[in-house]
């Protein structure tokens, strides 16, 4: 018996739970002020999240998937994405999209039940939200293939949950990315739950990062509540991708501090103690503590930011609520580039312009 292959999974964390540096920080964090934009974005994400939940609770929005707890991942990724990269979100990456320039009321429109929520004029090549788990990863392979084919220095960044790692699509995509050495980073947001399914029962694998070994591609595990670590790890992975050095799977460890969606009640399947423990590791307070300790953030800054974020959330809600309802023609407008003649009567009937007549 001989050993023919060896592997290891590495983990990156810079800040401890209280925001204290565990060792030397990456270059970009030498000046703590460089992290202030990320912090501001994280607080805004939280304000928008709270607003969305309030809208849902008051019957003005449909089912909504909260982003509470994953702000460091979204902000860390947002900081290292370049304009020409392509983001392929799941349904929980509104934070990243805000940093891509997508107006917050679009996200509200999406969860409010309007396809116009997936129109991102600010970031037109990014993919829409994706609900069927892991299916977006195949799209990401296609995007990355197109980038490579044209010899462009861009990358695709696709997101998926811990639950998504059990789907065949996840593995098919990683494998293909490895075969063609594609400019693709897949970021697994391991928030410990897939609805009620805890991470440890989703798979017997010790880490989710190691799933990359099956595809023969690079992997890294990172503390997803540490914005500096996320930025570092994802930034390097994207740089490698753009440089033609191939794909990476990044597992970001975090915790879903909210219910799965507003239609879920997490108290049915997890304890208050577990949740309380998780709150101690949450990312916003951690980064604030580090910024404050390093003289880059004050109480006054915080008060002003809170006010600003509240106003922006309010404005987003207003823009959402004032968006006129879609007209029925929206069902047909972009069904095809041009609606085939065979379906014109359906459009007319849906818009109340004609009767549905079997003998038309």
């Amino acid at each position, binding site marked *: 018996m001989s050993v023919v292959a060896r592997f290891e999974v590495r983990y990156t964390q810079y800040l401890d739970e209280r925001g204290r540096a565990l060792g030397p920080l990456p270059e970009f964090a030498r000046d703590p002020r460089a992290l202030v934009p990320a912090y501001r974005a994280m607080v805004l994400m939280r304000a928008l999240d709270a607003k969305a939940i309030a809208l849902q609770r008051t019957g003005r929005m449909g089912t909504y998937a909260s982003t509470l707890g994953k702000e460091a991942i979204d902000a860390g990724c947002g900081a290292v994405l370049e304009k020409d990269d392509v983001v392929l979100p799941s349904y929980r990456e509104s934070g990243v999209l805000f940093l891509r320039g997508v107006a917050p009321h679009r996200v509200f429109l999406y969860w409010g039940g*309007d396809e116009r929520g997936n129109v991102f004029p600010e970031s037109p090549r990014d993919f829409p939200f994706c609900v069927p788990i892991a299916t977006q990863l195949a799209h990401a392979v296609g995007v990355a293939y197109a980038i490579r084919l044209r010899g462009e220095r861009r990358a695709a960044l696709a997101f998926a949950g811990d639950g998504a790692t059990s789907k065949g699509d996840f593995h098919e995509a990683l494998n293909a990315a490895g075969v063609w050495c594609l400019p693709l980073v897949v970021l697994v947001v391991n928030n410990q739950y897939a*609805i009620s399914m805890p991470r440890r*029962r989703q798979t017997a694998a010790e880490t989710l990062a190691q799933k990359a070994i099956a595809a023969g591609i690079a992997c890294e595990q990172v503390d997803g509540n540490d914005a500096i670590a996320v930025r570092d790890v994802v930034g390097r992975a994207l740089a490698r991708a753009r440089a033609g050095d191939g794909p990476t799977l990044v597992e970001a460890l975090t915790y879903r501090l909210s219910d799965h969606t507003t239609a879920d009640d997490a108290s049915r399947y997890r304890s208050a103690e577990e949740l309380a423990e998780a709150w101690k590791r949450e990312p916003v307070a951690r980064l604030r503590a580090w910024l404050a300790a390093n003289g880059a953030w004050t109480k006054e800054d915080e008060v002003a930011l809170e006010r600003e974020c509240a106003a922006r959330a309010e404005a987003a809600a207003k823009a959402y609520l004032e968006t006129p309802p879609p007209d029925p023609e929206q069902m*047909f407008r972009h069904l095809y580039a041009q609606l085939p003649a065979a379906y014109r009567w359906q459009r007319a009937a849906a818009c109340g312009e004609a009767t549905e007549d079997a003998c038309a």
Partner: protein
Amino acid sequence: MPALNLVEAVNRALARAMEDDPRVVVLGEDVGVNGGVFRATVGLLERFGPERVVDTPLSEALIAGMAIGMAAEGLRPVVEIQFAGFAYATLDQILNHAGRLRHRTQGRLSCPMVMRMPCGACIRAPEHHSESPEAIFAHVPGIRVVAPSSPARAYGLLLAAIADPDPVVFLEPARLYRLWREEVADDGAPLALDRAFVLREGSDLTLVSWGAMVYETLSAADALAREGVRAEVIDVATLKPLDEETILASVAKTGRCVVVTEAPRTCSFASEVAAVLAGRGLTSLLAPVERVTGWDTVTPLARLEARYMPDVPRILAAARRALAYR
């Protein structure tokens, strides 16, 4: 006799089947401690334990394929797919295996499994949560397709599906899950898996539907009754095999037929019903068969779904056209 809503009736049937037959196992995403996202499996974990009430990893193709293996090995798996929109990943297993195992092995192995899933729109859910894939499943040889439209029928048909020696796709109308209650005797009595239900007798017009659209269709029949029109209402219920006789007998009486489905029109199950009428039913037809269907569009998100769905006005308009036709 307890008054149950539709999802409670499903739950009751599952519990009953698990109690009566130790081979029955329930599996799917979040069916255990969470009791299913619609609570169809609530209480089962506590009563029957985690070996028989199985929370699966997030892998629909695996779930369907695994059920095939379980069934061949002598269990009676009842799968829950969380929403019909996530069942497409199971089609490979259902088409290439579940419906074929008995035939492929000439009776040596068989596949007594049930695959349940909530279907249909107008529950204000997110994207991909509003699908009506019955026509796709009804095209698959070797399986049965069932769609209940009331608590009592859900109970009796689900028990029959679980007891059936062949694979059954069981499509539950999510919109009706909690819409009303009715008395359901927990008597373990199955309903026939090849008989349509005549819910209302009438001689002027035949209205045919299944699943959530039965509810809309009955409301339309009420409205017609107020105008003095006696519409016969048929709940197909067992889509595959289709009980053509009941529909043909009705149309032989009425001469006029409206078929209602919320699925996209082209190649829908409404087309199958209409095709039967164009063939065996032609001599009875006094008016064109009206199909009132979802448009050939993507089911829109919540803000527009009411404009996508067949509703009472659309059914009435079709009924009036059929009645007026000379």
